[in-house]
């Protein structure tokens, strides 16, 4: 490989827009605090073989949730008697307009499809009148013999709905026409049938549905929310973000009974801001089954300049995995100070780190990436924060920076929004067990480099 080819190959291995495949997956468990989520969830599953549990899974945008859940599915399949069904709901839902039925529909089709991929199964679609009717809207499916599954994932995905905006409406009308039948009922029926088959024919005993991307829903049952009161109508006309919170709250708290009505194990992803605003209610509803995937801790609590060695190594591991087979070593790619700078300013947020590397690779004519180029790629992030952070947030960011325990006010909506936009990052401590407030927060390192933040900080610090 020439140098440029090498540079190009490395560049293409750093993709901020896809979750890590198993070649690139690193578990980072220690650096994410003691919360070895996979282990915890597996343990919980093993102890609950005869019950149906509903879990919530949350974490920052781009912190590795999907990578972690894909990994979890793999481990569950290898090490337990549960058969995992991983569903990326982004493929099914119009996140601006989602109903519970859309979610159930996605579950039915994926449960059947993924089970059939692996095992023989006679799916008697005529027993599922509603589902059959819905599938009919997607047209052109052919029934192959008796057991042909008359659809594939592509036919139910959002692309089709995008081309025909009336389709979703038609489907909803069809579903709502006959109140005696429900998609939840049909979902439970298919789960029942499949679990019966699992026990008879396979080494597995139960299903676990991993419902990813539900945290991306922006509007849930919008018409319903609308009708309820004038206030809600105002809500719809007002800021989208508020709408989103209201929608997410409605789905996971008000509709909790129906979500819990699925008679098998399910892991739902919820947005971190919802959990931080309504943590108490969520815990009441879902018990202790709420799991948070924190950032990879890259520095110690409140000590930005003291690297947390374990986390640092995890991030280096992530980079190394992506450098494999590129005829190169990490030291040939980065000058040491450049690497440290990128690690430090990623704040342990993996997607940012990956982007930083890509940007830095564009900067240099030849490897290694030098300090100036590393700094330049962070600068782009600083710039977008400087322009997009709302004016009234700067003071709050400074307050967090100065707070003794690196804590934020619970339930403060501004902080929730900042968590969502990654202006604030959440970490979990595994190393100082004497403290109860294991969760702590830090201002995104890139924000520390903005003038506005530094001015806000100065204002709050008494001058000498």
């Amino acid at each position, binding site marked *: 490989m020439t140098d440029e080819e090498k*540079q*190009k190959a490395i*560049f*293409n291995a750093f*993709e*901020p*827009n*896809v979750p890590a495949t198993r070649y690139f997956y690193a578990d980072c468990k220690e650096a994410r605090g003691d919360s070895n989520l996979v282990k915890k969830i597996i343990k919980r599953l093993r102890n609950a073989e005869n019950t149906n549990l509903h879990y919530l899974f949350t974490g920052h*945008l*781009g912190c590795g949730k999907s990578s972690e859940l894909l990994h979890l599915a793999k481990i569950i399949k290898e090490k337990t008697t549960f058969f995992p069904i991983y569903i*990326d709901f*982004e*493929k099914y839902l*119009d*996140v*601006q307009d989602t109903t519970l039925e859309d979610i159930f529909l996605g579950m039915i089709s994926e449960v059947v499809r993924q089970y059939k991929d692996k095992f023989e199964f006679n799916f008697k679609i005529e027993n599922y009148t509603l589902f059959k009717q819905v599938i009919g809207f997607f047209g052109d499916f052919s029934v192959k013999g008796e057991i042909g599954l008359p659809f594939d994932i592509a036919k139910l995905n*959002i*692309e089709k709905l*995008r*081309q025909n905006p009336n389709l979703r409406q038609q489907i909803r009308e069809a579903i709502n026409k006959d109140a005696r039948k429900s998609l939840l009922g049909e979902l439970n029926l298919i789960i029942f049938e499949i679990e019966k088959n699992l026990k008879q024919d396979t080494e597995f005993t139960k299903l676990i549905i991993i419902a990813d991307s539900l945290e*991306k829903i*922006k509007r849930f049952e919008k018409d319903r929310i609308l009708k309820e009161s004038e206030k809600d109508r105002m809500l719809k006309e007002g*800021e*989208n*973000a508020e709408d989103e919170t209201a929608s997410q709250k409605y789905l996971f708290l008000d509709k909790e009974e129906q979500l819990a009505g699925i008679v098998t194990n399910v892991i739902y992803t919820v947005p971190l801001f919802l959990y931080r605003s309504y943590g108490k209610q969520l815990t009441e509803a879902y018990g202790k089954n709420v799991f948070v995937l924190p950032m990879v801790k890259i520095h110690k609590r*409140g*000590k*930005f*300049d003291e690297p947390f060695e374990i986390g640092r190594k995890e991030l280096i591991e992530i980079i190394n995995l992506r450098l494999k087979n590129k005829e190169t070593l990490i030291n040939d790619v980065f000058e040491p100070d450049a690497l440290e700078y990128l690690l430090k300013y990623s704040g342990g947020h993996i*997607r940012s780190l990956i*982007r930083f590397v*890509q*940007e830095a*690779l*564009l*900067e240099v004519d030849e490897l290694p990436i030098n300090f100036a180029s590393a*700094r330049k*790629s962070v*600068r*782009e992030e*600083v*710039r*977008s924060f*400087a*322009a*997009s952070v709302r004016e009234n947030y700067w003071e709050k960011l400074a307050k967090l*920076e100065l707070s003794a325990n690196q804590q934020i006010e619970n339930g403060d909506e501004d902080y929730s929004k900042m968590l*969502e*936009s*990654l202006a604030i990052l959440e970490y979990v401590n595994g190393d100082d067990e004497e403290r109860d407030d294991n969760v702590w927060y830090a201002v995104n390192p890139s924000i*520390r*480099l*903005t*003038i*506005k*933040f*530094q001015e806000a*900080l100065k204002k709050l610090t008494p001058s000498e």
Partner: protein
Amino acid sequence: MQIEPAISEEFEQYDDEKEFRRLIRAVKFSQKHFLYFVCCNQVPKQDALIADAKKKLKGVKIRVIKFKKPITDLLGELQKKTIGKGCEAVFVQGLEYSISSDAQGAENALIHNLNISRDSFKKYLSCPLFLWLPEYAIVKITRHAPDFFSVRSGTFYFSNPPERVVEQIFQSVSSSYLESLSLPLAEKLKQIETLENLLAEYRGLHREKRDKQAEIRLLLELAGFFDFISEYRKAIEYYEQSLAISSEIGNQFSEGKSLNGLGSTYLNLGEYRKAMEYYDQALKIAHEIGARQGESTSLGNLGITYFRLKNYRKAVEYHEQALVISREIGNRQVEGSNLNSLGNAYDSLGEYQKAIGYHEQSLTIAREIENRQGEGESLNNLGIVCASSGEYQKAIDYHEQSLAISREIGNRSGEGISLSNLGLAYYRLGEREKACGLWKEALSIFEAIESPTANVVRQWIKENCKS
């Protein structure tokens, strides 16, 4: 805690050459779909950079798509045009038309769709996608489509040449109302494009470099042009923006202008109550600040509203008041329009001779000051009075003249009106078929511009024409 010095001040240190090299490298390196943002406030500069990039990347298949109108679904548009198949890079320009720069952005359809389709882009496109945008639009996307923005692989920042935008705004809006009004349609559309480009550039400016007065003038100008070509919704959008900024900075003069503009647009859309409210507010402000011109405009507009509500006596009253002021301040154009309106009111009251007198006076003025639209209106109105008094052949003659002018200057509403009236004259002469053809033509125009007159013409067709 030690904090490194801020690097914000470095944002202003652009290095176009270096950014360009990065951009070229990004195209060369990306072997699959990656998303990039290119921040460049001026469209001509974007064009130049893209031309350079194509030269530099000879042999690389780059597809450039430039939107000239708002869209709601970028992925859908790309799919429709099968863009991306067989390309090695896609450059998209013109998305700023779809991303308004006012405070509300959360409800923007394009931004919503970007946010929900971030995974779908990856599936559809196997090559890198570069979105060329002014900075304000990128900030909007950062704020309202964080999911989409977070999967980017990079942003390139290009410098803004020394601030000529504000200067350019003042230059390009200095042309008079009358001149703009009489421009041929193609010229009007061209002017709209120039002005919208300027607006996008202006909004890419740093806060401290902005000039709100310039922005207001630009918005009013744009609103006016959209009003001329009967795109009322667009006109309302811009009038509302200029109203908001005017009241924010306390410029009552432009506030009044915006209110009058909003009134007229709503009047054209048939929302009389709303129109009247805006005119009343404008009149109040005009009184307050002693703006005689504004006062006359508001009075005249109220007169027109009463006319539409068939209260002809009241209409005459208002128009006479307005006429006194416009003569006093010597605004010939408004004087002509007041005379026209008076003529219309007297026509409706059955006082044809009086009506003809007023219309002829206004026609003379319009020709004197070369007000093409005014000329067309006077001719049309003369046609109406002739028809009212049974002189159909004469009426047809007037309407034909007026129709030609409306078409020439792209006055769609005027065109529809002349066509309907022409039809009416033929109908009275017993030429039903001809009348119906003209009405149908008029109807399609009224429907296109959402004019309430559509209902009237539809009724005529329903009652008199074979389907």
